């Protein structure tokens, strides 16, 4: 098994218009999917991220509010997934609920030392 990082971007534009009932259903689908692609009965490890942060450059001399990217480009969260290979990892990502609202999943293989 190899390890992969999924980066979630976008998909939140449509959220604000969802009703509480729809939000709960959407959340449930995330939870189910994260558990489905996991090898345990718990969701795959990962974290949601705040949309704002700092970008530190030049040895700490240059600190700016970031990320500067557009809303759609901001990483909203990540998870770590085990899969056989990149194709398998891509396959596993296809049921991600982020696609319901036009978000994307970036799938990256971690390099094994």
């Amino acid at each position: 098994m190899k390890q992969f990082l999924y980066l979630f971007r976008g998909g939140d534009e449509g959220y604000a218009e969802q009703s509480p009932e729809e939000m709960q259903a959407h959340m449930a689908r995330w939870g189910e999917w994260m558990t489905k692609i996991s090898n345990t009965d718990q969701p795959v490890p990962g974290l949601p991220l705040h949309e704002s942060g700092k970008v530190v450059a030049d040895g700490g001399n240059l600190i700016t509010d970031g990320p500067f990217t557009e809303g759609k480009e901001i990483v909203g969260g990540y998870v770590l997934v085990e899969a056989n290979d990149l194709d398998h990892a891509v396959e596993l990502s296809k049921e991600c609920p982020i696609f319901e609202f036009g978000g994307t999943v970036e799938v990256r293989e971690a390099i094994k030392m």
Partner: protein
Amino acid sequence: MPANSFQLVDHFFRTEYSKAVTYLTSRFGTAHLEAAEDAVQEALMKAMQTWPYQTTPDNPTGWIIRTATNKLIDHLRRQQKVYYATKLPEQAASPQPSEEVFSDELIKMIFACCSPSLSIEHQLILTLKILGGLSIREIAAALLKKEETIAKAYTRAKKKFKDQNLRLELPVADALPIRLQAVTKALYLLFNEGYKCTTGDQLIRKDLCEEAMRLNHLLLGHTQLNNEHTRALMALMHYQVARFEARVSADGNPVSLRDQNRESWDHQHIQLGDRYLATIKHGQSNEYFLQAAIAGIHSRATSYSSTNWAHIYQLYQKLYQLTQNPIIGLNSIIPCAEVYGPKQALIELKKLEDAPILNGNYLVPATKSELYERVGEIKKAISEAEMALKFAVNKRDKLFLTKKIFKLVNRPTSKPM
């Protein structure tokens, strides 16, 4: 043990929405209703985006209240409400109210949303939005209205709510019975909105019924509000909802009481209806009791023909005396026909049909058509059915009548006139 995000109980977000909006509105004042709604919506969004990564918080209600409170305070600060800015931080850490306090606050919100100073339409929309946690789109689907219409009505209703500075408090003792009547009326109508129509999304319509029952249940939990009217209404709701599924066929067409599969009635609801009904001592001038008693007789009958129609008709007559509502009178015509025959029923119907409220109501000619058919006057039955078809609005009613006309016209042995 905390659950995963997909193991939360059904409608959890919806009930949390109403709790949190009510809690924030009572703390910050009805002037901030809109900001409270936005804050709770944002809090739920945040829950949705973060809870799936781990198990849900130990205390999800507390999490939502806390998050929404902080968002509302941020919002008020941004609006430079200095008063709040200086006063709020320590309040934000106040302990989460108990379920009892939540219930009390929700009851006060029910009274505010069902204030007689608001039109009944506005009462229903406010109740569904704030207490039901339904979105404008869902309310529109449930009430079979356009989304835009509901959105506009909600904006107006909210404005009145704020302009009149409706306070979240229980009416004082003297005014309480009258105000409670208005509340039960609104809940009754809310329930009927969900129940009466067999078109549209049945799932969301059942939600209306369940919401009305949930709110009525809250009232019953309060000693001052648990009386023979609220209990009778609860009995009625249980009896009706027991037949919810049976009254629509698999292909979405309405099934009349006569043809319903009585096995598929929900007997748990019927039992609960019985239990509430049995607690009522003086039901004779209680509209909900009389309706519930009628529904109870239907629920206990093992078939249409073995139904105790005489008792039903008697109850209908009492109900009509009490309400003087011609629609109730119209509803009593079929029981009358079952007891005294279709000819007598036609005579009774004649007495009613000039009532302005029944003018253009397709049920009048539809009932007449049914009665004429039973006495064998097929020509009249056909012309009344055609009249009913002209008045009917609902697609399925039209289909039903068209089929009926076809059947009448093609009767193999129609008697000569």
